[in-house]
Each structure stands twice: as structure tokens, then as C-alpha cells.
């Protein structure tokens, strides 16, 4: 594995390997030892063309816990900057000796371009590209699910997962649908018709416009962030109507089956796609997701940069 651009690039074995590695890293760093020497001398660059402090911090702390040198490069402004600058910036980072570039960009496919255009030879990790994919988010979500339903689970086929919200514009949904189905889970996509992508039939996941019809059957309910600007583009009339149809409020929360968990990639719009009570309930694993994000990103960096065997190097600091 040279890059991590899309969940579709991973085999089931590779995906499980990342999850296993993350679990192993958790064991190695849970005690007094917080830091491993594994990537000492390697340079990881966070190249962020979009504001996302939480994702950047997650990658940063993952790299630091593996003793890599971290450089943050945040492009000014969050608008799509002229492509030339992506190329120029990447080449500058390469010249600075970036072993891995973690890229967040508003344009779908930006990570693919970086990896495949020949501009740089660094390993590329997609930290979210436009409305395409966010593979490490899906991996951390799978890791979180595993912790709740079986830490060594290699087959998710006993699980029913609902992914609810703005599927059309969601890179989190694309990566999660691909990964969870690959691992065997039964994924149902729930959204108003305007936010369901055309041709979703080919993704293999059934979709529904009705959040309530099978609510009691889901083991995992994953709520997606909805941007309020969407109502100005007539995807739905207003926030109130959206919440009524697709928000996880207290009454829907109460109908979930015992043991079901509620996930959200953050940042949450409390009161829109998820009520405050749902977000803070015992079913919510949102805070765990954040912690698990660091572990999974450590695992990805470790695998891409080819660190030495974890068992032989662990825990000496």
C-alpha cells in the first residue's frame, strides 16, 4: 500500500489489518508510554486547504505519537485555490523531504491528483477530498464499531447500520458505505430524495426516504452533518422540516434497540440532525470516535511509512 486515497483501494485484509494495528497501538500506548519511536526521522506534512482543526490535530497527534516530525501547511482561505498552487505547494513539500502528505482539499479527487500526477513521490493520505471520500474517518468508525460489537470481529454481517443525512455531499458517507459493506455489514442509506445521489443503486446499499420504518432494527445509527446552506439550494425547505424527517431526536433515540450506538463524524449541528440529548446520551460514541481517530491514523501512517515490527519496538521511551 503506497497511498490511502479511497476505501476502494483497500482489500478486506488490508482494512482489517489497519484496524488490528490500531488496536495493537492502543495497547502499546495506553499505559505510561504515550509515544513510540517507530517513525523517528520521518516527516509527515499536513496539507490543509480546508479548515478542519479536528482532523488536522488528529493526524498531528498520530504522527507525533509515532515520533515523526510534523509540518503543518494550511492554505489561506478555504475556497478552491487555483490548481497550479496545489502542484507548486506539493512540490515544495516534497523538496522539504515529506515522506507522507496528509491532504485535505475542497476538490474531489485532489488526493488522487497528488498521488497520480507525478508531481511528488511522497505517500499520500486523503484526509477528505471535496464530496468524494474520507477514508480514515470510515476506518475510525469501523474501529469504533468493532470496539462495541467485538474487538476482533472480522465479519460485520451481524450488524445493521443506518447512515442518515446528506449522502449526496458527504465524503464520510461514501467512505463508510464502501468500507462497512466490504466488511459485511448491512448498510441502509436514509435521506430525503434530493440528497440521495443518482445511481446509488450501484453502491449495493438499499436506500430509504423514511427514517422511522426500520429504526428499531439498527445496531448503528450514523448521523451526517447537514449544512444549512443546503436549504438555500432547495435541497429541503428549512431546518425544522429536516429535523422532523431526518433528525435524531429524543423520541427516535428512545426507539433504538438495546445496545445500539449513535455515531456522528462531527462537528455536530445540535438541534438540526441530532438533538442535544441524543448527542450527549449514553448511546452516543462521538467522543470515542475522536479518540479512536488518533489510533487509526497512527495505524495508517505506520503502514504507509513501513515502520518496523511493532512487537519488537514497542514501549521503549
Amino acid at each position, binding site marked *: 500500500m503506497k497511498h490511502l486515497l479511497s476505501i476502494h483501494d483497500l482489500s478486506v485484509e488490508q482494512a482489517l489489518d489497519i484496524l488490528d494495528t490500531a488496536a495493537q497501538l492502543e495497547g502499546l500506548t495506553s499505559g505510561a508510554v504515550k509515544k513510540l519511536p517507530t517513525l523517528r526521522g520521518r516527516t509527515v506534512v499536513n496539507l490543509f486547504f480546508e479548515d478542519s482543526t479536528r482532523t488536522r490535530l488528529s493526524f498531528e497527534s498520530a504522527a507525533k505519537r509515532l515520533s515523526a516530525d510534523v509540518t503543518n501547511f494550511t492554505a489561506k482561505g478555504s475556497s478552491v485555490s487555483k*490548481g497550479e498552487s496545489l502542484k507548486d505547494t506539493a512540490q515544495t513539500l516534497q523538496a522539504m523531504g515529506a515522506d507522507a502528505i496528509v491532504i485535505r482539499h475542497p*476538490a*474531489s*479527487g485532489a488526493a488522487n*491528483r497528488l498521488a497520480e500526477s507525478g508531481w511528488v513521490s511522497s505517500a499520500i493520505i486523503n484526509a477528505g*477530498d471535496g464530496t468524494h471520500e474520507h477514508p480514515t474517518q470510515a476506518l475510525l468508525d469501523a474501529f469504533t464499531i468493532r470496539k462495541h460489537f467485538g474487538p476482533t470481529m472480522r465479519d460485520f454481517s451481524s450488524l445493521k447500520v443506518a447512515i442518515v443525512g446528506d449522502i449526496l455531499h458527504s465524503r464520510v458517507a461514501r467512505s463508510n458505505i464502501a468500507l462497512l459493506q466490504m466488511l459485511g455489514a448491512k448498510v441502509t442509506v436514509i435521506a430525503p430524495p434530493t440528497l440521495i445521489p*443518482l*445511481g446509488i443503486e450501484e453502491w449495493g446499499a438499499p436506500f430509504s426516504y423514511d427514517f422511522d420504518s426500520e429504526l428499531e432494527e439498527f445496531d448503528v445509527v450514523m448521523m451526517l452533518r447537514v449544512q444549512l446552506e443546503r436549504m438555500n439550494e432547495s435541497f429541503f425547505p428549512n431546518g425544522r422540516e429536516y429535523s422532523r424527517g431526518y433528525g435524531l431526536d429524543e423520541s427516535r433515540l428512545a426507539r433504538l434497540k438495546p445496545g445500539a450506538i449513535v455515531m456522528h463524524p462531527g462537528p455536530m449541528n445540535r438541534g438540526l440532525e441530532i438533538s442535544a440529548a441524543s448527542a450527549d446520551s449514553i448511546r452516543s460514541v462521538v467522543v470515542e470516535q475522536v479518540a479512536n481517530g488518533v489510533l487509526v491514523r497512527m495505524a495508517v501512517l505506520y503502514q504507509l511509512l513501513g515502520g518496523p515490527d511493532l512487537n519488537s519496538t514497542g514501549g521503549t521511551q
Partner: protein
Amino acid sequence: MSTTHEILLKSVTLPDGSTSDLLIRDGKIAEISSTLPTAGEVIECVGLRVLPGFVDLHTHLREPGKENAETVLTGSQAAVRGGYTALSAMANTNPVADTAGVVEQVWRLGIEAGLCEVFPIGAVSEGLEGVKLAEIGAMANSAAKVRIFSDDGKCVSDALLMRRALEYVKSFDGVIAQHAQEPRLTENAQMNEGPVASELGLAGWPAVAEESIIARDILLAHSVGSRLHICHLSTKGSVEIVRWAKSQGMAVTAEVTPHHLILTDEAARSYDPIYKVNPPLRTQADVDALRAGLADGTIDIVATDHAPHPGEDKDCEWASAALGMVGLETAFSIVYTTMVESGLMSWQRLIEVMSVKPAEIGGYANQGQEISIGSIANLTIVDPKAERVIDRNDLFSKGKNTPFHGSHLRGDVVHTIFRGKVVLRDQEMTGVVHE
């Protein structure tokens, strides 16, 4: 100078499939006979076919304003390499070709280049803004005698403005060439709407955005008794609408680009913006419908939509990249490979769609003439057996943005003759300029 200038095409295959010698004298076809005595410049043409020079109704020459992308001269060279003896320069230059001054400038640059005829297309609306009619009459009456008007690159989306434009050009038998793209349905659109776009997370460009405008404009043109030409048809639904209109006897003509005859939206999976184009690459079902439509006459012509861009405009991520691809130098090979060699259409039909019919739509009297004695010698000579591997570095166009780099195609242009002078010989410019 009163010396006669003669060119002898030795053993050339004529459009009817027979082999003959063909003598050109002083710009016209003088004799066609099984053997003619050697005279003037002799070109051995065994195995080669002579066709009327191709005529492109849709070329972006970028001059004035973006001479780093293309000039009238380099575009003319690309045209000649592709077997074209006439091209039509789209109006979306800077300044826009919306006045007599700009169209005359482009027209004169074409004459100075002297490699093929360059017919300027005038803008429909001032500044391509879709609000107010451009000086259509002044452009029609200028030295450039503009007959085709188009806001190409943008759609004339205002129904009233479109209606007025269609009516207005009737006085001089002009035609409006519509770039059919409903603007609201394609805001921020990146590629064909469908499963591939959904998977790639690129905003969809729905087929209905094209089809709804075509349907509207066919009805508008019919209601006011005008002629409508539809640029770059790209969807199956568009073909069906035009087929219906023609069955009703409505005066509509349509074009298809070479790239829409061969590429599909699957190409976007690479995220390489070399495949980013307007209208977008569609599905295989659309490609099949376009091929069938071109073969059965629903689609009248092939037009390149040659759209050169400097390298940096494509050397970036998809969303930031410019729309368009170059096409003049590969058009024949693609049309031949996809349509003739595949058995979908005849040589005669290729001549119609690449030369005769575009000349007729544009009113280009010296173009698309039959290969017979007395005709003006605007000719292209092609090798149907050539095995061609496209190399972008071989292009004469300043734009190297071909999606066919590395592609294997069948058939190639070998020589081009413009007004009785060899302007392309053995795929090289001869340096001859028609004064």
C-alpha cells in the same frame, strides 16, 4: 504572375472507390482520368483517398485575447494537419466577437495565415452575457459576412432573446448555433450526472439540462420559421428529440464532436482533467445513440469543438481545470475508426458529415464541393490504412490537451490542398501560404 500551377495526384482513390489520376490547375480540378501525363508537382497517391477538404463549424481559436493558448495561425496549422480547409472561429474570445470590428480582425488574420478559410462566428448577445442582442446585422454586413451566430461556451438561456435572435437572422439566412445548457441545472457541474459522478463526488451535469434547451429551441425556431443549429449534441435523449423534430420537417441541424463518439464518463475515474469538457463525456448508451444518429442522418455533421488550453489550465485538480480538449488534428482518425472502419457508415456519409453538410449549413460556397472537373481544389488526401498512435507533442496546435495521447487509431490525413496549393505534404507544413 501568370505561370500556371499544376498538381498531379497519381493513382488516387476517388470518393466512388475508383482509382484515377487527378490534375489540379490554377486552384481548380482540371482533369480526372485513368492516366494523365506527368505535370507540375506530382504526388504519389497509391492507396490514398482524396476527399473534399473538411469543414469545421466549431473551433476555438482563442485570438484575440488568449494567444498563449492558440492563434489564428496555429489553429489554421492544426486544421490543415487534420485535413480541414475551412474552420469557424467561435465568438468567445477577448474581446468577444460581438462587433464588426472583431469579426473582421479574425477574418483578416485567417487570410494572412493563408492555410485554410477562417469564418468568424458572431456572438448572439453582447459580451456573451445573454441579455441584449449583439450587432448581428453589422457582423453579417461586414467584410467577414458572418452567417453563424453563437454564444458558445454559454447557452442563450433567455427564451425571449433566443426567439428574437432566431427571427433576426432570417433577413440574411443566418443561423443560430445553440450551446444547449440550462444554466441553473448545471451550476458548478463537473461531469455527467450518473453513477460515476456520484461515486467520484463530482457534481452532476444532467442530460436533461441539454435536452430541455434543445426541445425548447426546436419549438421556438419552428414557431418563427427560422433555422436552428445545435452544437455538440451529447445525449441519447437529444438525439431522440432531434430525430422527432426532423420527422416533423422542422429546420434543425445538429453536430456531434469526435470525442463524444468515442469517450465515456468512465474516463473521469482518473480525475485527470484532460477529460473535463463541456458538454461532459456521457455514458456508453449515449455514445451508441450518437453514433447511430450520425449514421442515420439525425445528426448532420461532425464538429470538433477544438478547445486549446495552456498546460497549467489542466495541470491541477479537476474542479479548477479548464473545460475542453483539442480536436482538429485527431477528428478524422476518430470518425474513421469509430464510424467507417466499424461499418456504421460509408465513405460517402463521411464526406457529407465532415465537409458537404457543414459547408452548406455555414453557407461556405467554396467548400464541400464535389470532386469533379471545375470544382475548387479544397481537398484532403487520407490514408485509411494508417495505424496511428497519437502523441500530443506532435500536435501543431498550441494546445496539447488531447485526451487521445497514446491512443491507437486507424486512418490519417496525409496531404491537404487549399485552393489548389499543397499546404500539408506528408503531414508537414509546406510553408506555402495562399495569398
